[in-house]
């Protein structure tokens, strides 16, 4: 009996040690990430997960990251932060201290990334995010936080400046948005660009994410009858606003969202009701971007469709761009796994020196970690597809304006 117990104990101990032994044998880059795979941002978080997996699979298909002629495959570890920022910080701390991963990739959602990047800063992990853009992320004097997206307030520039291309030019606008970090900043951005363009702001209100019924709010907007309705949104807010707009029977001449319509579910869920909607974006497949790993923007778009049965959202391509910068920094420095703290410091320094063209566009990080060389664009849903409509020189098609009232649309 005692022998049996001892045997069992040994088996248990060796089972516990096994992953460690396996870890020692094959040299690979272990890269972790905390993402909202469930909860309010569950859909958005899963997109970013797909994007990182796409990047890793592409690299691993060639054997991995090549350092001095030797290939080191990439292994990804995903944790679900349940759309909760405290959870995100906790999981990232676990990645840094318990899992001891080589690198930590950026999550999704400004609030979560805000909390998580404080942890990566503490443990000196460079974090390049493609799924968060609130200005506050860049105002903390952090050295290890980078973003491939523009700042939230600047991301929505296209949605407002497009007014100059419209005939008749819109005179009035209303701004609504949920009062979380990213969307309230988008609302702030809308406001400042409206001022620059001398468009009158007739109504503005922020509401909590937990708001059940959008109808009362949109009736108020309807009464003000603005030419433009600008919404600070994530996917679920964008869907709810569209549903409510139809129920209150109101369609302004132009409606734009800071985020949401570029996620495939938007058009899939709303069908024809999604037509005319304009959205801020940072990437579109028709732009002339390319790199050696993924080819042109168009090629990435098609290859992505082959793998996932859907086209990538700009946040996904921004995340791929972010992973690429870290990969290139490692390659340039010739670092091999496991990465030590000194290695990660060198990666951080290398990222600041970087000025590269990627499939996502040009990436050059400013002193605050924001991508300073990336112009925002605006897309519109036309015949069930996203079409680039702003800026003029990148536009695939002219913008549809004014949007038809609900009653005049054919089903």
């Amino acid at each position: 009996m005692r022998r049996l117990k001892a045997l069992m104990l040994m088996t248990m101990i060796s089972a516990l040690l096994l992953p460690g032994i396996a870890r020692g044998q094959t040299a690979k880059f272990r890269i972790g990430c905390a993402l909202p795979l469930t909860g309010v941002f569950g859909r958005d978080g899963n997109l970013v997960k797909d994007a990182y997996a796409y990047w890793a699979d592409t690299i691993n298909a060639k054997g991995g990251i090549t350092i001095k002629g030797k290939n080191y495959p990439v292994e990804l570890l995903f944790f679900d932060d349940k759309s909760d920022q405290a959870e995100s910080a906790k999981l990232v701390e676990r990645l840094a201290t318990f899992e001891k991963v080589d690198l930590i990739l950026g999550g999704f959602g400004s609030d979560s990334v805000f909390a998580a990047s404080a942890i990566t800063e503490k443990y000196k992990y460079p974090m390049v995010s493609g799924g968060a853009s609130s200005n506050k992320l860049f105002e903390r004097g952090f050295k290890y936080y980078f973003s491939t997206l523009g700042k939230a307030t600047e991301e929505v520039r296209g949605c407002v400046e497009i007014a100059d291309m419209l005939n008749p030019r819109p005179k009035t606008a209303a701004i609504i948005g949920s009062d979380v970090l990213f969307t309230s900043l988008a609302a702030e951005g809308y406001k400042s660009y409206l001022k620059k363009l001398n468009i009158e702001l007739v109504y503005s209100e922020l509401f909590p994410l937990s708001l059940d019924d959008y109808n009362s709010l949109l009736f108020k907007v309807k009464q003000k009858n603005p030419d433009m309705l600008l919404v600070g949104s994530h996917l679920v807010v964008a869907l709810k606003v569209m549903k409510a707009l139809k129920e209150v029977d109101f369609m302004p001449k132009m409606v734009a969202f800071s985020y949401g319509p570029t996620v495939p579910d938007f058009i899939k869920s709303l069908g024809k009701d999604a037509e005319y909607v304009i959205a801020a974006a940072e990437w579109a497949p028709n732009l002339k971007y390319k790199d050696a790993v993924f080819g042109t923007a168009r090629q990435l778009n098609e290859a992505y469709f082959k793998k996932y049965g859907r086209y990538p959202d700009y946040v996904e391509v921004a995340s791929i761009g972010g992973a690429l910068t870290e990969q290139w920094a490692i390659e340039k420095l010739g670092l091999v796994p496991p990465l030590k703290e000194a290695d990660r410091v060198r990666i951080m320094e290398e990222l600041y020196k970087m000025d590269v063209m990627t499939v996502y566009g040009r990436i050059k990080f400013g002193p605050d970690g924001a991508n300073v060389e990336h112009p925002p664009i605006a897309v519109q849903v036309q015949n069930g597809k996203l079409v680039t409509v702003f800026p003029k020189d990148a536009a695939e098609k002219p913008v549809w304006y004014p949007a038809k009232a609900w009653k005049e649309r054919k089903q």
Partner: protein
Amino acid sequence: MEGEKAVVALLLQALVTGLLMGGVYAAYSSGFSLIFGVMNIVNIFHGELIMIGAFTTYWLFTLYHVDPFLTLPVSILSASLLGYVIQRFLINRVVEAPPMMSYLCTFGIHLILANLALLAWSADFRTVTTSYSGEGFSVGPITVPLARLATFGIAIVTTFAIYWFLEKNRHGKAIRAASQDKEMARLVGIDIRKVYALTFALGAGITGMAGGLISTYFVIYPQMGLPYTITAFCVVVLGGMGYIPGALVGGLLLGIIQSLTATYLTSGLSVAITFILLFIILILKPQGIMGRGAVE
């Protein structure tokens, strides 16, 4: 004159919007009240029953193009079947234990159902968009969305149907007897466990139906349940725990107050007002505004 008209129109619109939203609240809260009234169980997986009903409608519509209103019987059936099975095999074991046991039990089921749905259907946000989605009609300056009007009507009909069932029908009377005096009911030959399972199936069924209804104008996803449970709890406390017409009154009241707050103050306050009301009622009138609810 023009300005005055606009003011009146806005007020009327706010009242109509609130009334219709109240109908939605009532539709998905009456099942919660029924189950509490009879079994004294605060059903924490109530929201998941709504989710099951909503997804039943969604899948039938998406895969087979069945009109959402025609899918309602299937939504009722799937939710009540689930409710029946869970009650029969799980809740019946804790129904006479201290309340904490049933909280834990239903909370566990809430987690299991939400996560199973997440595995099966992923975290995608979905919505049923029919050719008539969002359609409505206008009475003067007031816009009335059709789907919500239908929900409102159905909520009223169900409330009265259940009320009638409990007051007049033999099975309904057995349910009431069981809720009033378990021991006495047993003595006169009522099979309490059967009554409980029947009640649960009924409560779950009307909840599932509400889920089917809301899928046409709300966004649905596997983890949508908990906020609905919380709202249902507030509605039922407002109207009186366990008193069926109370769910209707509580729902309408909450809907109208929220809508007026959102229209004249801010949308943010309209969310807070739910809980402010909850506190006021619990302190001043724990039997609900109708004074007919159960108090422990």
